[in-house]
């Protein structure tokens, strides 16, 4: 057992005092002393981020589980209620979110090729699309507020019991629901607000982090090959996109049906 566990050494923190050579690479100032190599540091960070996103999947998973359960039980209520959501607005937001994801991916690329100006521009664009998404979401929420479709004491089921008559065809625009089933539309709207609200909360946090990253990028912090924060945030942002790509069909699309 040669050169084993520990030998005498005078300096306690060799890596803290002066940057020195590791594996013939110059050590970046962002290198943390407890990692052997920069590659190890980068891999650890990225692996940690993936694990964190796994916990996020489980977090949203509880809500998806609830949705699955109640959609089976109260199918008519969920169908009627989901017809209240605006597919054009949802589709528009989907495009917006994919655009922001595209800009973020480009941002990671420009960080890797060390183009600071383009990186900052892409981060700002990502932020812009994120804000637009939240704005549209706000419009949608406001519409639910006006129609008394927010669960609670002022929730109004009249539209589901007596659906409005279409002027052209003279028929009801929606299957009428029995009052007790119409009550169950509250469960749909609660899940709608819980799931999209949780998603929006993730976006708000993401936009705050984007601001911080943009400021750091502006200060040339990601222009020397140290791109881990940009890469890891990119993973987070794409995760938020993907959650929406499940939410959109689940809430807006799959229960829609042509009226007989």
């Amino acid at each position: 057992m040669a050169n084993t566990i520990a030998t005498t050494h005078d300096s306690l923190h060799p890596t803290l005092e002066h940057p020195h050579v590791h594996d013939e690479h110059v050590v970046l100032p962002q290198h943390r002393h407890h990692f052997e190599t920069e590659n190890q540091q980068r891999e650890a960070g990225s692996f940690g981020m993936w694990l964190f996103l796994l916990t996020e999947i489980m977090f949203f998973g509880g809500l998806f589980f609830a949705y699955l359960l109640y959609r089976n039980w109260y199918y008519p209520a969920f169908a009627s209620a989901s017809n209240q959501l605006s597919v054009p607005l949802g589709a528009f937001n989907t495009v917006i979110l994919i655009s922001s994801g595209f800009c973020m991916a480009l941002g990671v690329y420009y960080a890797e090729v060390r183009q600071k100006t383009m990186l900052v521009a892409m981060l700002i664009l990502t932020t812009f699309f994120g804000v637009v998404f939240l704005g549209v979401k706000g419009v949608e929420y406001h519409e639910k507020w006006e129609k008394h479709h927010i669960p609670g004491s002022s929730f109004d089921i009249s539209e589901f019991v007596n659906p409005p008559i279409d002027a052209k065809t003279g028929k009801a625009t929606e299957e009428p629901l029995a009052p007790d089933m119409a009550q169950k539309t509250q469960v749909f709207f609660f899940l709608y607000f819980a799931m999209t609200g949780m998603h929006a909360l993730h976006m708000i946090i993401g936009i705050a982090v984007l601001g911080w990253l943009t400021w750091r990028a502006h200060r040339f912090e990601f222009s020397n090959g140290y791109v881990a924060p940009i890469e890891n945030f990119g993973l987070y942002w794409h995760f938020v996109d993907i959650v929406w790509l499940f939410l959109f069909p689940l809430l807006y699309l799959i229960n829609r049906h042509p009226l007989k």
Partner: protein
Amino acid sequence: MSTSTTTILNLPDQATATLPKRNYLNAEHGLLSWLFTGDHKRIAMLYLFSITFFFFIGGAFAGLIRLELLTPQPDLVASDTYNKFFTMHGIIMIFLFLVPSVPATLGNFLIPIMLGAKDLAFPKINLLSWYLYMAGGTFTLAALVLGGVDTGWTFTTPLSTHYLNTHVITAATAIFIAGFSSIFTGLNFIVTIHRMRAPGMTWFRMPLFVWSNYAASILMVLGTPVLAIAIVLVALERTIGIGVFDPTKGGDPLLFQHLFWFYSHPAVYIMILPGMGVISEVISTFSRKRVFGYTAVAFSSVAIALFGFFVWAHHMFIMGVSNYSALVFSLLTMLVAVPSAIKIFNWAFTLQKGSLTFETPMLYAFGFMGLFTIGGLTGVFLGSLGMDIHLTETYFIVAHFHFVMVGGMLMAFLAGVHFWWPKMTGRMYPESLSKLAAVTTFIGFNLTFLPQFILGYLGMPRRYHSYPQEFQVLNVLSTAGATVLGVGYLLPMIYLGWSLKYGAIAGNNPWQATGLEWQIQSPPLTENFLVTPIMDHEAYDYEWLAHKTEQEVTTVG
């Protein structure tokens, strides 16, 4: 210190020995250097003190519960106060003691050293998780001071959302925050184990303590977020009155049960698995043998973690799940006994023909094996559908989970603290006192909880603060046992505290153990290793240890 031939204590000469001049404890000074530390060992010590603090608060409530149950009449407190007692006891013990105890203290301290790393992968997140733990603890204390919670630790809806006017939201916030603390700890461990192993430290050279913490970390990372979302929904239902669990609005209280137990049953394994890791280390060291069937023991940890996710509904047999799913969950529940039994049998084979010595950690480990076996076997009773219907919500359940979690986890925690105390502090504790504490704990524990099996079988329900006269003898026995148990817990507090200043110098490897942590100085340096170690032998290789020359064992001083 004992000088008998049976002991393997290998202590430095008392007259000349001193602690190493440089170590993680004296690397920096002042309170702030502790509160802003990134050193996993210092964070482990922060956890050790705060977890001990909460343990004694939780223990005080246990004492109050047993005091009330001394007599059949409800003469100490009113029923709602009693409900608050057992709720606070449950919340504190589960979320602030049992879940974090071994991973956050011993795991934090040892996992990087056992792998030959300088620190955990994310020291700042590690510190953050301690702050989250403290914030969770503060909210729990706030709920207590503001007037308490009486839902029981399970927050069962619709009781928690509609019928109680106590501080459910404060307590829910506490659990939400503390949950993130354990998510981050688990995440940090998994990344460290995957990415920070020293050269030669292959997966199957890792100590079993690392394996078991790895399995527990998977459970923390996957299970805790589901608890978090269930708790958020309870809070929303209470505040805004949404109806996701409320049957009058179309919701289903059973959904809460599913979400809650999806975390909270695996949480039992989050509690017990790291404890099993401790027992593997202790039994190997004091038998001077490699753990029999190392690979089987390693994989059984992962198997317990996996099965743990498929058995949650055995908490719901009498709550209206279908007969078919109850049958399936009953069978799956019994499957967990297989990997658990693999561990117990392999420890028994390790002991067989080993050179056993009976140091304090070994006594606790024997206590663990006995108590956990009883707890595990009674678990099979409860997993059986018919028996469960008779025994559920009685004191049989209370006795069962205390045998598993207190008899298992707490014994393992005490075994681990005694085993690694010389490494953590550089000092020994008085041996006779510590053995006395181990025996007292074991006797007190059995006296407390064995009568509860009988009480439960006879039909005494849990969560009641009064009971028929004929149950009094057994309840008096149980309360007497709790008193003995309390003494058993207080003793280590006293002598371990004493040893911090007056204990004998332990030296690097007082137990002649093989793990990497025993090959460096006690207490270790801030960065653990000056030169990254190269692992060139199997775990628990006592032949390797015997052939190491004296010079190689010597480390910096």
